[in-house]
């Protein structure tokens, strides 16, 4: 992950957007150390370097440098979501949650030792103001 600090605690990240038929995404091979966010049945955000393989010759694969991530502990994330979201966050289910956080569209990626709140850089200034 590229470490460019946009505002304190929020770092720019580079990824790739992949849009393909769902059946091809189901069996695609992703870079080994990448974070793979299944945003929709036909869309994936891949964060991390390395090749990927997908069996759809019409797939759209595009670089995306428009994202940033706020790294939190689970308890910090739980507090943030209880305060600013009107949706339920469960760490026991899928690692990806998507919704509005203080009216800002976010993707929440949960790992055992950290949580990433991923947001478009066009909202960074609002993140700084609303999430703190």
């Amino acid at each position, binding site marked *: 992950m590229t470490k460019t600090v946009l505002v304190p605690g929020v770092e720019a990240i580079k990824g790739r957007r992949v849009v393909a038929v769902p059946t091809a995404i189901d069996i695609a091979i992703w870079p080994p150390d990448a974070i793979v966010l299944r945003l929709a049945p036909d869309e994936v955000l891949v964060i991390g370097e390395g090749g990927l393989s997908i069996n759809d010759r*019409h*797939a*759209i694969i595009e670089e995306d440098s*428009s994202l940033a991530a706020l790294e939190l502990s689970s308890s910090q994330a739980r507090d943030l979501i*209880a305060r600013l979201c009107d949706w*339920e966050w469960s760490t026991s289910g899928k690692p990806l949650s998507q919704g509005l956080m203080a009216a800002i569209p976010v993707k929440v990626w949960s790992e055992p030792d950290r949580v990433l709140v991923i947001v*478009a850089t066009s*909202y*960074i200034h*609002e993140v700084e103001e609303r999430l703190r």
Partner: protein
Amino acid sequence: MTEQSFTFDGSAIGFLEGDSIAIALLRAGIHPTGGGCICLEGDCPHCLATVDGVSYLRACQIRARAGAVVVSHPRVGAPPLPCNGHDRVSSTTHFVDLVVVGQGESGRLAAEDATKARRVVIAVDANDGAEAIGVYGGPTLVVRTPPGMMTIHATQVVVATGASQEQPVCPGSDLAGIYTSRAAEKLSEAGVDLGRVVIIRNPDRPIRFEGTEEVEAVVVATGQGEQRLEADAVVLDLGLHPRNALARMGHGLNVTAIGDAAGTDELPPAPEDGVVCPCSNVSVADLVSVWERGFREMELVKRATLAGTGTCQGSVCLPHLRAFVRDRGGLVPEPFTARPLSRQVTMKEASASYHLPPMRRTALHDEHLRLGAQMDRFGGWWRPWRYGDVAPEYRAVRQAVSIGDVGTLGKFIVAGPDATEFLERLYPCRVGDLKPGRSRYALLLDERGYVVEDGLICRDGANRFVLTFTSAGATFAEMWMRDWADSWDFDVRILDRTTALGAINLTGPLSKQLLERAGVSEPPRFMQHARTEVAGVPCHIFRLSFTGEMSFELHHSVDRSVELWRELMSLGADLEIHPHGLDALFALRLEKGHIIIGMDTEFDSTPRRLDMQWAVRMDKPAFIGQEALRRVDALPLDKQLVGLEAEGASPIEGAVLWEGDQLTGQVTSSRYSETLGKAVMLGWVKLHEGQLPDVVTCEDRPLTRVPMPFYDKDGARARG
């Protein structure tokens, strides 16, 4: 008495540890609102006060605090609106199996049983400061607590809020010195001396209270007739009524009342005289008046008198209103509908969990600020309106070279085996004949044939297209495309690139020269596009023209925007480059007659009404809106967007247009054209007998209808 005190209407009031504000006031011999039966349970409106700037608080539910500033509510009219700063009230959201409102015996047992059954439970009680104030769909419960607001999404809500004591309705019930028996008990426990007390128990009823400001005597109806009793205080035990407003709010939801809140409501005798609803000051005479005028249902009586719509939301008056309607109508009516909120809240509390939709910034936002831009909100984005004086921006485009930030434009990739057929059906223009590397301007119509969006279709390969949309329309466009792709079951992939790509519009007669300096020796021709590096930044260049001059839209990865912008500014310094904002852009495009969707279009603007039938191919097999256009285009044209010009200053946008003394339309876009030396406008006008007016008036000036565009009629400048 301790030395602790708060102020009430400017006077110091001492209090004991644990006192509520109401108890401290009553101990000092002060009725919080001047009169009315005191309940000390949060049911009645007789202890409402403004505490530390927040009005409509129940003094019986607020712990006395040293230094608090308490102000009584006016006897007539409303207290002032709170104005105590702009800090937010915090808000939390919770998801549980069960929420229990009220922690009396039945509520506590319900919470304990559910906890034993391993259900996730939240229990709230107004006596602990957590006051449930509304039930919404879900069910969702909104609770006000000292730290802030709670929104609780629950599978089930149990209402265990108990029962309230009946309040009296008779002349003199607004005097001080009247208490419910529970209130008297609390005052006794607090050591408040009520003096000579008369206790009236159900089924006895007070007929009237006597006194000037405070009770001096009460006349009671007993089984043995009327009896007059002198007293300093009258304590009433007239019966209980379920405190079930939250349960009634949750009608049809999984909301259950238990305990006394689920009890049978034994209605009192119908009131004969006095004030029924102290919040809205509705008397029995008022009820009789509306009844005799035909308002003979609970909901009608409520609406006609406003009884039950005040601060206590019917806690005091509902049993008496039902008794009145029962007595007159013969049937026991259901309680009137309960709606959130059951308590007054401050604006800060009401807005606690609300956040305004965020405005996006482009990657060049700080660059615009550095250049002195005045920013404004357009289409969900912050955009530069102008960089100081607009004239140099306009002239740079018309005479030299300029750059503008168009990164806000909607940008999409559509690919797949059915991409061409999909777009053929989506757009009213031809798509299949577009060759790779070529672009076409396109309208987007809805099923009624109305123009809802516009942009470019750019063919990128046999089965791959880049589409652009307006800044405000990108979200709609994505939804529109996905819905239709699903409906038609087309094999396409759609990717929104709006925020991933920055876009800079390089425009002006010297723009090609600047591109050459940036390393692009052979830029694409008009309405073509190509990928190449510009000043070392990989770009997808789209040749088009919104300004009327030669223009190149440079789409690039958004993390390279600042680098590209600065490089272009540097390379163009000796070419008199100047960035342009929206103010200049709107003037430039108006001179070319280019419409802005939502500004020049109305909800029912067909291509014919916009005089843009050239953008529609009715001979195509099918496209969205085609059938509607066949029908409406067979009707006589009734109005049209036209070009207008006048000498002198430009009228304001939105100005009314007249044909003689008949209103004919309005101006949608208006600017004074420095190049043409006159005001130019777009505006809607009506046709009469199939004819457009040649001259209309606006602000008492004649405007002449002229063919479009105003500027560069043959398009030579745009084509370069």
